[in-house]
């Protein structure tokens, strides 16, 4: 039912049910389990009052129906009592099982939860730049987490919501059925006030929805105010303006108390109506039923059974309308997931054949697809008359002609918005040219060959994004060690995987087993060498667990410079033939940068390196400099030539350096 085309999603109820069923399908036997539990729960519910009816009637019999004693006392014969106790024990068991019903529903909720998240996450992994400029990370995380998991959203509704409603409905039918069978006339009279109360409750619930929305709004208003005041505390204090935010918060809180009180009042009203509905029914049973008992039309046991049924009816009757409320919320979440799934991918090489008919249940990833063997090393890259626009009418790249050759280091400079980042994104394969061609080794790059091209890429973004994993895992990202090693002779001599000849990090065995199963010893060696190259060895020596140290929220904090260096090591891991560096040396000092560049070149002697930088010291290292302005390459050459001849180069460099901190980030 999912097509890769940007089809509109205007689902009918049937479509929604099919959507839900698609996640249910792998777990279909659970349908029977849950149906069975529905029956158990309903059976226990109707049986309990019936047992008491039986007990009371037997006792009354024993006493004698015509006894004129004012106080009816009695005993039950021992064998009869044993039978009754036996039935009650069965009911106890039934109750226990019935109480596990919510747990079973939660169990399936979790299964669906996993399925939905995996499917949507898998789809996000295959999206292109348009998608990521359209959805902020925070939004994606909300859709991947809260929208699926929170009560009463998607996963809850898909199982618990539906089956709870089913359980309530079934209890309702069974209880009313039992009452009708016991005494139709009394049943009608006793249940009469219920629909009326329910209609009232339903109307209040609708108002409750609005009130709760208003409450949420006022809570987030409070939070906004707190957040902005605390994060802007310097402003507040410097301006001696403490009284301002204080007064403003007071206004917000005063209004909030009123709004929250309204919510409480509506809830209290619903609660009170719930009990009133039940009590009115019971009143009818007491008066009408009592009179019927006197007239001999009803047994005492039946009267009490009615009394109990009326208590038990309330819960399911209140629960049923809930399905309508929660379904609305769940359907909104469903649409939000579907929006992600359906967001079209336009860059051709992102449209993998696999994604056209992604199975609804996420199967294990096709193994081996990830690492295509680099058949033909990149020797040259040619951009011929390449044009690109993000679709806003402005050409980000406008007829760019560039040839990059093996072993060459090329710097790209230009002002903000001149197109240099776009150029890098295009080379990294995030974008494809609107017009013009990208040629590798003289041949245009077909979408199908993209995997091969990508396997030879190294990319260091401006923002070094690391994961909360170990340092080694951040560098390796589960990739196998490249076997054709140039400088690393020891790594390629067929050493056994478990050889741990490296120093200072024996503690990491448990962690690295997570990352890669094969050749861990070899990749470990290579990783260590890379970490040395990016000058991390001193820091690693200081960390207790070396490269097995966990990073991130619950792990070690590392500085911006360290993050950048790790990001560079990651880019070098697969021995790229094309290395793209997006302004990534900003927080390295001159000495570190010198050594880094020397080491880097030695690691990938034949690779093409393209770097974007604002720093004179970095740009000077390039074999060639491309100066960009308004999407065009306006000058090329060496630093010395350009500094003499190119007015734009001079202007760009001066402006950029002026903007830089005098020394702010120069130390590491």
């Amino acid at each position: 039912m999912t097509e890769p085309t940007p089809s509109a999603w205007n689902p009918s109820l049937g479509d929604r049910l099919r959507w839900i069923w698609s996640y249910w399908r792998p777990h279909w036997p659970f349908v029977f389990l849950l149906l069975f539990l529905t029956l158990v729960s309903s059976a226990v519910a109707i049986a309990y009052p019936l047992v008491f009816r039986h007990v009371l009637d037997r006792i009354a019999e024993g006493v004698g129906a015509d006894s004129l004693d004012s106080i009816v006392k009695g005993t039950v014969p021992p064998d009869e009592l044993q039978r009754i106790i036996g039935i009650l024990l069965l009911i106890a068991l039934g109750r226990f099982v019935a109480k596990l019903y919510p747990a079973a529903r939660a169990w399936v909720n979790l299964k669906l939860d996993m399925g939905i998240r995996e499917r949507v996450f898998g789809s996000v992994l295959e999206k292109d730049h348009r998608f990521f400029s359209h959805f902020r990370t925070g939004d994606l995380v909300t859709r991947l987490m809260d929208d699926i998991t929170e009560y009463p959203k998607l996963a809850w509704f898909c199982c618990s919501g539906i089956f709870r409603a089913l359980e309530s409905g079934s209890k309702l039918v069974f209880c009313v059925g039992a009452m009708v069978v016991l005494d139709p006339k009394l049943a009608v009279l006793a249940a009469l006030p219920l629909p009326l109360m329910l209609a009232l409750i339903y109307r209040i619930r609708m108002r409750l929805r609005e009130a709760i929305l208003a409450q949420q709004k006022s809570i987030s208003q409070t939070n906004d105010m707190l957040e902005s005041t605390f994060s802007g505390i310097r402003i507040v204090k410097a301006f001696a303006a403490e009284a301002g935010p204080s007064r403003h918060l007071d206004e917000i809180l005063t209004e909030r108390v009123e709004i929250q009180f309204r919510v409480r009042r509506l809830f209290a009203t619903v609660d009170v109506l719930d009990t009133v509905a039940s009590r009115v029914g019971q009143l009818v049973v007491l008066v009408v039923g009592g009179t019927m008992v006197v007239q001999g039309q009803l047994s005492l046991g039946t009267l009490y059974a009615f009394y109990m049924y009326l208590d038990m009816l309330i819960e399911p009757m209140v629960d049923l309308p809930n399905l309508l409320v929660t379904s609305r919320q769940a359907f909104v979440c469903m649409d939000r997931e579907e929006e992600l799934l359906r967001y079209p991918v336009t860059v051709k090489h992102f449209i993998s054949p696999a994604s056209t008919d992604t199975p609804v249940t996420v199967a294990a990833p096709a193994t081996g697809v990830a690492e295509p063997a680099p058949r033909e090393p990149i020797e040259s890259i040619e951009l011929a008359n390449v044009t690109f626009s993000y679709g806003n009418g402005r050409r980000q790249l406008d007829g760019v002609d560039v040839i990059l050759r093996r072993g060459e280091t090329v710097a790209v400079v230009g002002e903000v918005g001149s197109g240099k980042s776009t150029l890098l994104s295009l080379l990294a394969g995030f974008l494809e040219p609107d017009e013009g061609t990208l040629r590798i080794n003289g041949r245009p790059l077909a979408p199908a060959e993209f995997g091969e091209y990508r396997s030879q890429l190294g990319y260091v973004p401006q923002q070094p994004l690391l994961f909360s994993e170990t340092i080694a895992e951040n560098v390796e990202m589960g990739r196998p060690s490249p076997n054709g090693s140039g400088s690393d002779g020891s790594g390629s001599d067929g050493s056994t995987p478990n050889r741990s000849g490296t120093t200072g990090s024996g503690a990491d065995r448990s962690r690295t087993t997570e990352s890669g199963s094969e050749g861990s010893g070899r990749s470990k060696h290579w990783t260590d060498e890379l970490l040395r190259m990016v000058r991390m060895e001193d820091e690693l020596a200081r960390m207790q667990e070396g490269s097995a140290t966990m990073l991130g929220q619950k792990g070690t904090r590392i500085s911006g410079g360290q993050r950048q260096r790790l990001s560079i090591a990651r880019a070098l891991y697969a021995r790229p033939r094309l290395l793209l560096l997006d302004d990534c040396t900003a927080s390295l000092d001159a000495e570190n940068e010198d050594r880094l560049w020397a080491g880097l070149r030695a690691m990938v002697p034949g690779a093409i390196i393209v770097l974007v930088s604002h720093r004179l010291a970095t740009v000077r290292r390039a074999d060639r400099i491309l100066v960009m302005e308004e999407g065009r390459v306006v000058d090329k050459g060496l630093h010395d030539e350009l500094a003499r001849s190119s007015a734009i180069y001079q202007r760009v460099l001066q402006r950029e350096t002026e903007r830089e901190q005098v020394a702010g980030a120069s130390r590491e």
Partner: protein
Amino acid sequence: MWWDDDGPLEEGYIRRLGFREMLSRLAGRLRPERARLGLGVALLLSSVAAELIGPLILRHLIDRAIPAAQSGADPGAILRTGLIYLGVFLIGSASTYTQVLIVAKVGLRTIARLKQDLFDHLLSLGMDHFDRNPTGRLMTRVESDTERLQNLFAEVTLSILRTVILLVGTFAVMLQTNAAITASVLVLALPFLVGALLFLRWMRPLYQKVRRVYANLSTFVTEYAQAVPILQVYGRGPWAMERLRRRNRDRYHTEVRTEFLDYCFWGVVGTLEVFAVILILFLGFSDKFGGGLTLGTAVLFVEYTRRLFWPLALFTEQLGFIQKAFASADRVFGILDTESTVVDRAGARSELPTDWNEIRFENVRFAYDARTIPELGDDDVDQLEHAVQGNTSLLALDGVNFTLRRGDRVALVGPSGGGKTTIVGLLLRFYEPTSGRITIDGVDIREFSLAAWRGLLGLVLQDIHLFPGTVSDNLQVFLQAASRDRLEGAVHALGATDVLARLPHGLETELSEGGQNLSMGERQIVCFARAMVREPELLILDEATSSVDPATESRIQASLERMMEGRTSLVVAHRLSTIKNAHEILVLEKGKIVQQGQHEELLREGGLYRALYDLQFAAGEVA
């Protein structure tokens, strides 16, 4: 998420309160509402009484009214019983409803007041408190911690009181009716209560694990969703999928286990009720024990039993709430007890000299609390760890002397961690010097009140900070003091009247989150104007380093120049033009002024300044 921030208290800053002290302080907070609370408790009693009477009426009907009617002795008995039932449930429902509303109102108002007090108190604390506590944590204190206290006040306390009264009442009636049977039901209930408490204690780590595992999954999704392009470049999609699956499964296993254990507990509660009923029937109607329970009493006991075990089970659950609420109360009162490190001296003057000539740093030394250094170079992380472990402090400023003459522009330059931000913080009196002093015309600035001193200053920070509210709210930080003319005048002085004209409602335009309905340049202008509204005599400027497009850049430059024109200013400088125009440049390194002078002098002098300049600005020479 609030539970992530459930971490340790900031030891050493917040002392733990004793249980009694905490109770008395909580009670103190409720004192203004005591009349309403009293009424609430009275209504609670009436509502519980109604609940207890219901089954008694049922017994009366079965044992008395029906037989009386049957015998013809009292034909109206059934109707009368019905009317009593009606009366009781009407009174009961009305009491419950009113009581809930009263208590809700008390709770909401008390907590709103507590929030306000906390907020006001936090604003009065020294900057060190904000360095130590990230914004998220402070928000948790004011919002989530107080909400938990609200639960304690309103829901939990009352519902526990209700449970206790209900239980006592139930057992009183039962005992009075049939002591033997009641005692045996108690014997069944007590071990259950103990068992339930033990079970919940045993479950607690599991609940915590559920939250932790979900937080892990959430972190994972955040990081990997951000890094999708990286994953794509290296073709690591399947790898990322595999990791997601593993974390998904982790969560699944933990939660399934917890859910089943949890519901097993409730299942046991459900069966207990049946066992109690068995006990009642057996003891009440078996020949061996003499039998002889009336039908009405049997029904009464069954009805009471049905009401007995749920509150008991809920009660054990509520103990968990109370524990959490007390932890929150600890933190909340801890903050209210924290004293500010920067306060007005007794008899501080509220008038500054209007014709001052110079502000001077005299041998100022300053050490941050080792835990809270705001300005860190990469190297300092290690140094910081040492300092934290040794519980020593780092000298952020070490004997700084300089003079800021009226009308001068002084620039601060130097590597990060050198002390630039600290100088600004001390001048703003965010902190007090550890030793030495800052003077205005020879008078220590601590002789003046904070409000008076800060009234002299205007601050423009390098990052844009806007408040949720209108432009006008932002220009005066919610103080409704300045006239419309003055606000417009401030914008005009920046040469930015056109910005105001573009806004749909002028000064009253609402800024959406973070000012996203304004361009970068416009947001910057609002921040500048905020400083200008106060017509500061001394402007403190932390220059921006972020890249903006060239047109915006030159616009910002022009506004900055207009601001500094004719004013005394202290600038943490990042732009060459700012430095070149400064009357004096202070080069800071490791808390000391290592060089001092004008641009050309310093360049000739060599040293750190020259080195910094060469690294960053060498291209300027070419042009």
